[in-house]
């Protein structure tokens, strides 16, 4: 089964063959490396950019303007913060030209903690991104979702930000991507660049088929009746594990993978919370002015009288960075045990 890095690669391969993607670029995105997480190995339209994030976003905007279809990478989302004005500009270009200039462009960037990345390889970007109008924002938690959502992103008429949870990058999926060989390691032999000299290497692309996962659709990954948990990215699998564990403790939780952060699938959340009366939002961005707080506001706006307990957020601590030492990272962003405890506590609150 493909891991997420391979799934991204397969999607980009499909996109450059069939969806008109013209440029996949960024720092170390082209040969020989093919991306610091190997997401862009062996592709035909990749190239290495200068070390200049503003240039990367600006170039993507220009390419999109001129009818190209760029997929630009910011090597780590930690380094995207000096481009927020350009992201805002990309998000308002259609609007300020009163509908004339749309920018079909994808920006992808690895996000989040879980790899002991210390202060500058652990950032989350979902809070900042969801505050920028005019962008669609995606964050998969499985390889198949990454594949399908990236195909959708590459067909969008609008800018799409594709956030890839680093911690999940090397986790194999449980579902095959259509066309992916089913034997273990077969995919790796076909599409992972070899160790050693790569000058003669070419990827042997399996004939992957498109998967349709429209932007804006959440996925209920576990049905439950007593409590709703909404998450995405690194924390999503932990929420699922916690829900499964809590089932034996008598708590039946529904787990929703939001997948697209903007526009998000409010209908699915609303129906679930209307049913359970309790909701926990989980993400790992710092918790002040956090996207989960928006979801809580929406919840109180529309579901206040159905709530059996306060809607809760479990997110990253409001500290200036994620420290390198295990102890520091664990104290800064939600861990499995934190999620478990928060769910249990919420389930037990008296109405």
């Amino acid at each position, binding site marked *: 089964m493909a891991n997420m890095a391979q799934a991204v690669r397969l999607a980009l391969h499909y996109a450059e063959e069939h969806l008109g993607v013209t440029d996949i670029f960024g720092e170390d995105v082209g040969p020989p490396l093919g991306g610091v997480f190997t997401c862009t190995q062996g592709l035909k339209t990749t190239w290495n950019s200068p070390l200049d994030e503003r240039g990367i976003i600006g170039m993507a905007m*220009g390419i999109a*303007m001129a009818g190209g279809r760029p997929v630009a990478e910011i090597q780590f989302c930690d380094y995207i913060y000096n481009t927020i004005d*350009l992201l805002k500009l990309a998000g308002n270009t259609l*609007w*300020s030209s009163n509908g*004339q*200039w*749309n920018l079909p462009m994808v920006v992808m960037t690895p996000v989040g903690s879980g790899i002991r990345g210390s202060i500058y390889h652990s950032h989350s970007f979902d809070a900042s991104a969801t505050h920028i109008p*005019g962008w669609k924002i995606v964050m998969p938690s499985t390889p198949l979702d990454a594949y399908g959502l990236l195909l959708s992103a590459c067909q969008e008429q609008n800018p799409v930000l594709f956030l890839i949870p680093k911690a999940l990058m090397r986790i194999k999926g449980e579902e095959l991507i259509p066309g992916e060989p089913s034997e273990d390691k077969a995919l790796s032999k076909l599409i992972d660049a070899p160790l050693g000299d790569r000058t003669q290497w070419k990827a042997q692309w399996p004939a992957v088929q498109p998967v349709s996962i429209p932007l804006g659709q959440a996925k209920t990954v576990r049905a439950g009746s007593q409590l709703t948990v909404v998450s995405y990215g690194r924390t999503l699998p932990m929420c699922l594990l916690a829900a499964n564990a809590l089932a034996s403790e008598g708590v039946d939780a529904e787990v929703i993978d939001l997948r697209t952060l903007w526009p998000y699938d409010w209908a699915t959340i609303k129906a679930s919370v209307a049913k359970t009366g309790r909701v926990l939002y989980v993400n790992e961005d710092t918790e002040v002015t956090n996207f989960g707080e928006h979801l809580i506001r929406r919840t109180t706006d529309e579901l206040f009288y159905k709530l059996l307990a306060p809607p809760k957020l479990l997110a990253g601590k409001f500290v200036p960075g994620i420290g390198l030492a295990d102890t520091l990272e664990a104290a800064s962003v939600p861990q499995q045990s934190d999620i478990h405890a928060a769910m249990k506590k919420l389930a037990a609150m008296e109405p």
Partner: protein
Amino acid sequence: MAPPFPWVYTPPAMAREGKNPSPSSPTKPPKPSSPSKFKPKITQSDDLPLEKDLLLRMHDVMVKARCLEERLIAMYKSGHGYFWIGGPGEEAFNTALGLLIKKGEGPAYDYLHFHYRQSATLLAMGEEPLGAIRQMKNTATDPYSGGRNFAGHFAKKAWNVAPVSSPIEVQYSMAPGTAWVQKRFGGDGISIVTGGDAGTAEGDFATCLVWASRPGKEVPLLILVTNNRWGISTPYTDVQGVEKISDRGVAFGMRTKTIDGNDPISAYLELKEAFEYVRTERKPYLVEARVSRLYGHSSASGANFVTNEADCIAQFEDRLIKKGLLTRQSADALRAKYAEELAELARQAKEEPFPEGSTIWEHVFKGEPARDPLATEEG
């Protein structure tokens, strides 16, 4: 409809006195080089080495552009618009530029990444002035932004005019992108980016130089800087140690030139050479043009005519008259004609409605309905 709380970019009285503000300060000694030293030198020859038709066409566009800007200023002053910014003083250079542009949509044509002083270029390309007037008045009919953006913020996809946006210099980061597509596309379409002198202090200017000159991947990009020696109230020489902005390109192995942007003839000839190089060599060229700023920075500085900078139209008319290509009378008549036409257009625009409040939801996402994403059934 006067601005409720205008900000002041330069002291209004200074503008009223017809002077760009002096850089000298009450507390600091005079700066080593005073800005006046850098006024564009008037070295315009008696020779007019261009076809008569072209000369008169240039003059015509320049006058029309000046009349347009003066109409926009008049609209601001009479409360028909909140903010004015535009290009009076840059007509010579901007007109020459516009006449050389290959106009159309898509990579076969030139992509234009402009800043807010480019009206003469648009007119030279054949644009009708009514759109600029509508944008000034922020009517729903404003063809560039639907009443959303300031005057001078053109956007016209049919002619590859990228949306002018207020943040200084960001267009320099985007321009290599359209040029990159054109490099691959082939043909002779190029990208053109313009901006001011002060803005070259932003990192985006350097980004442009870096991305335009990648070895073997140089892009067909004409990088222009109109140097009026001002950034709002701040003289160039107070804040930047670069003598010739065009020198910034040298380390990048780029062709560069500093030219007199107040002379439409030399501007035309220099630009023509640069255009030809970029079109055929598919490599960047950096041109710095020394220009004037004739109505101060914007309406925030009063938007009054200044008398201490060269006026490219007055100079050009003198030369044309000297050569017998124009008479004072015909020049005055031309100006009067355009002034009247533009006043009429302004009267027309004044009758047009503003956009509905609900239009804020239009064009958030291409191909999607206009709606508040947070609207609930209960409202």
